[in-house]
């Protein structure tokens, strides 16, 4: 045992937990922590806004499967993390947020830069802590990391008053974590797995819907085995993209508001729906009450509260997908489902959804598809939120888990650049492309400084339509083209990049797209491409808000301008 300061205990614990990087921003109350930081083998990335720190930690986690850590000072520093924490919470990613707070004598007295960040983040964290003694720190950090990374992952916040960083305590590494109220179920009920197998064996038109949980449960391989043995077509949710290789013959894209027509129809016409590591979210399922009312639902998830939340479930299986899937596969009989697969194939032939039409104009779908071709489908794509996000999901084809990184549940604009930074830091050898909205990019573009500081070879593609495109699309379709507060005069993004020392080019015609992508890829460092895409292009297919999946509409002919 040794006597250490609270700051040292925290860093010692983080180091032992395997933390290599912290995304942070200093301030008064965390100075004791910053003072101790150089003595530890932990890399600190200085962000330019704390929201960036939280998104970077999240991007780091999503790209690597490991916990991401962010750090902020009290008050405004802590509140700036909130959007990033909520983003991680909605998508169940393991982000550990550490905040300083005012000294214990001042807590509750509205001390300078005091914010009740544990109170504020209670509904957007898996759990949070206010640490009042240096002697509580070691166990608290261990518990926090355990909660953050096990079961259904999720963000955990630890708030530490300034003088707790300074207080000394005996440091002892707690070997054991014991939480009476936290015991995730991993195994999966044998009887339920048997019932699920029986239902699948009797099914004529089974479909698997794979979600983010397959990626976090590292069960892509196990999913492929199940699908192949019983020849069950697989669709994914938006966050499940990459959980099942999109070049696999049984892959039928992803479902939902902007999912593929045939994926939506397959889900809506199946007789057995097998939801794996997903939560039957409204953006994926359309109007609940009219989603395929006769289908029997098998729901496999690690979080019991997700089962039965939105839909009545025929067979609930609470467990870890990596455990449950192989046991299910063992009990499932080999099958072909020829008729059913032929039916979906026919729908896909009639409604291909993902064809890139021949145009003179520079359409965004063409940009994404060309990027796919030029990168051999191997890049890691990080997006913002809006039209470009949907096109990136649709027109790039993902082979692996963790290849598409995007804010699905909260839909946080501004995630693109810091998310990509986190991903690149987690995977220095990966080819990372940030696909940015011209709106969203401006929410967090100050993090370009981090790209330069850390010499990250990120390629930044701005989808410049001069609009908050997704909102404009809704105004066009549902508000009688009343384009209100969506047109934006954009700055010269090349000059902005240049100001940070990042080279770039502007692309205004289709003919330039391929060369621009090649130039960017050949450049060793970061590179920005400002794609001046067609301004009024819309995302299709679409399930209008409040409609059912079966009401998916495709691009009306008058929109198919060339």
């Amino acid at each position: 045992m040794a006597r250490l300061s609270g700051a040292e205990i925290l860093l010692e614990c983080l180091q032992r937990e395997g933390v290599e990087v912290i995304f942070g921003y200093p301030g008064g109350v965390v100075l004791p922590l910053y003072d101790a930081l150089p003595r530890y083998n932990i890399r600190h990335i200085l962000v330019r806004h704390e929201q960036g720190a939280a998104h970077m930690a999240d991007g780091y986690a999503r790209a690597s499967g490991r916990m991401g850590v962010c750090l902020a000072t009290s008050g405004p520093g802590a509140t700036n993390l909130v959007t990033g924490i909520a983003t991680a919470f909605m998508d169940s990613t393991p982000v550990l947020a550490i905040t300083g707070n005012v000294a214990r004598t001042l807590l509750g007295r509205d001390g300078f830069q005091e914010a009740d960040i544990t109170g504020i983040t209670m509904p957007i964290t898996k759990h949070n802590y206010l640490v009042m003694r240096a002697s509580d720190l070691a166990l608290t950090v261990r518990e926090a990391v355990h909660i953050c990374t096990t079961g259904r992952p999720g963000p955990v916040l630890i708030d530490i008053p300034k003088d707790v960083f300074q207080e000394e305590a005996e440091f002892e590494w707690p070997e054991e974590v014991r939480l009476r109220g936290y015991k995730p179920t991993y195994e999966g009920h044998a009887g339920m797995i048997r019932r699920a197998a029986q239902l699948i064996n009797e099914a004529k038109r089974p479909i698997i819907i794979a979600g983010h949980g397959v990626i976090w449960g590292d069960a892509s391989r196990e999913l492929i085995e199940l699908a192949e043995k019983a020849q069950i077509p697989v669709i994914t949710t938006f966050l499940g993209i990459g959980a099942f290789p999109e070049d696999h013959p049984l892959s039928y894209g992803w479902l939902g508001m902007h999912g593929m027509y045939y994926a939506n129809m397959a889900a809506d016409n199946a007789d057995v729906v097998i939801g794996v590591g997903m939560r039957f979210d409204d953006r994926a399922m359309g109007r609940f009450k009219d989603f395929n009312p006769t289908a029997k639902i098998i729901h496999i998830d690690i979080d019991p509260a997700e089962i039965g939340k939105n839909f009545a479930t025929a067979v609930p299986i609470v467990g870890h997908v990596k455990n449950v899937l192989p046991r299910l596969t063992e009990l499932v009989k080999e099958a072909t489902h020829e008729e059913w697969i032929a039916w979906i194939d026919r729908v896909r032939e009639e409604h291909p959804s993902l064809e890139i039409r021949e145009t003179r104009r520079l359409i965004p779908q063409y940009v994404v598809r060309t990027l796919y071709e030029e990168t051999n489908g191997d890049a890691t794509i990080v997006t913002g939120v809006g039209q470009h996000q949907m096109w990136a999901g649709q027109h790039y084809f993902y082979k692996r888990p963790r290849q598409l990184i995007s804010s699905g549940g909260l839909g946080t604009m501004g995630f693109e650049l810091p998310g990509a930074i986190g991903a690149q830091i987690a995977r220095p050898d990966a080819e990372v492309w940030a696909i940015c909205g011209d709106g969203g990019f401006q929410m967090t573009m100050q993090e370009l400084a981090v790209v330069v500081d850390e010499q990250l070879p990120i390629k930044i593609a701005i989808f410049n339509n001069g609009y908050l495109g997704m909102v404009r699309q809704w105004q066009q379709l549902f508000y009688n083209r009343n384009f209100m507060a969506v047109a934006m005069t954009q700055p010269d993004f090349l000059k902005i990049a240049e100001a940070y020392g990042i080279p770039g080019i502007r692309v205004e015609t289709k003919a330039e797209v391929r060369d621009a992508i090649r130039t960017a890829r050949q450049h060793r460092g970061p590179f920005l491409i400002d794609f001046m895409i067609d301004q009024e292009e819309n995302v299709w297919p679409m399930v209008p808000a409040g409609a059912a999946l079966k009401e998916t509409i495709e691009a009306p002919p008058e929109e198919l301008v060339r």
Partner: protein
Amino acid sequence: MSSRNGRRRVNQHTVVAIVEDKPGVLMRVASLFRRRGFNIESLTVGPTEAQGLSRMTIVVDGESAPVEQVEKQLYKLIDVVKVSDLSNEEMVARELALIKVRCNNLNRHEILDIAQVFRADVVDIATNSLILQVVGDEDKINGLIKMCEPYGIRELARTGRVAMVRGPKTTTVHEEVPESIARIHASQGRRVEGVELPFSSD
């Protein structure tokens, strides 16, 4: 919060949650109910037979939420150790009420007679008011309140329901936690008392 006109709603659920006795746990539970739109009819908290654990009895309006979701969402809170729905169990459910009733020399005896019928205790008496203390299920308490109304109720305080399953079955938690961990759990998040902390501000 409590159901006004007395009739115990068919769809009411009595949920008992055994929770870690830690600062903030009440806020976590309350915040969960608010966010998910579960209506709380009453909520009581107190210590249990085990150290470090508190017992919450929550009466939920089942119309506002399937009780299964309430249970599962409660379980998601790390500080919630055990959740039991007593609604389908044989249970004893009790509430205590203090009723300050207006009275005078002429009607005091009538009120005392009523109190006796309800086996309520008179716990305070003054020239123009008295306090009745009554324990029972909601129907009984509502009945007494109704009988007191004509005299004038100056003030009413009710505890909300506490409940327990009949027979040997329990809704308690028996898991022991190693001493070294229990000690830290007991202090986690709690204010430091008895020592002069340095004053520090920056």
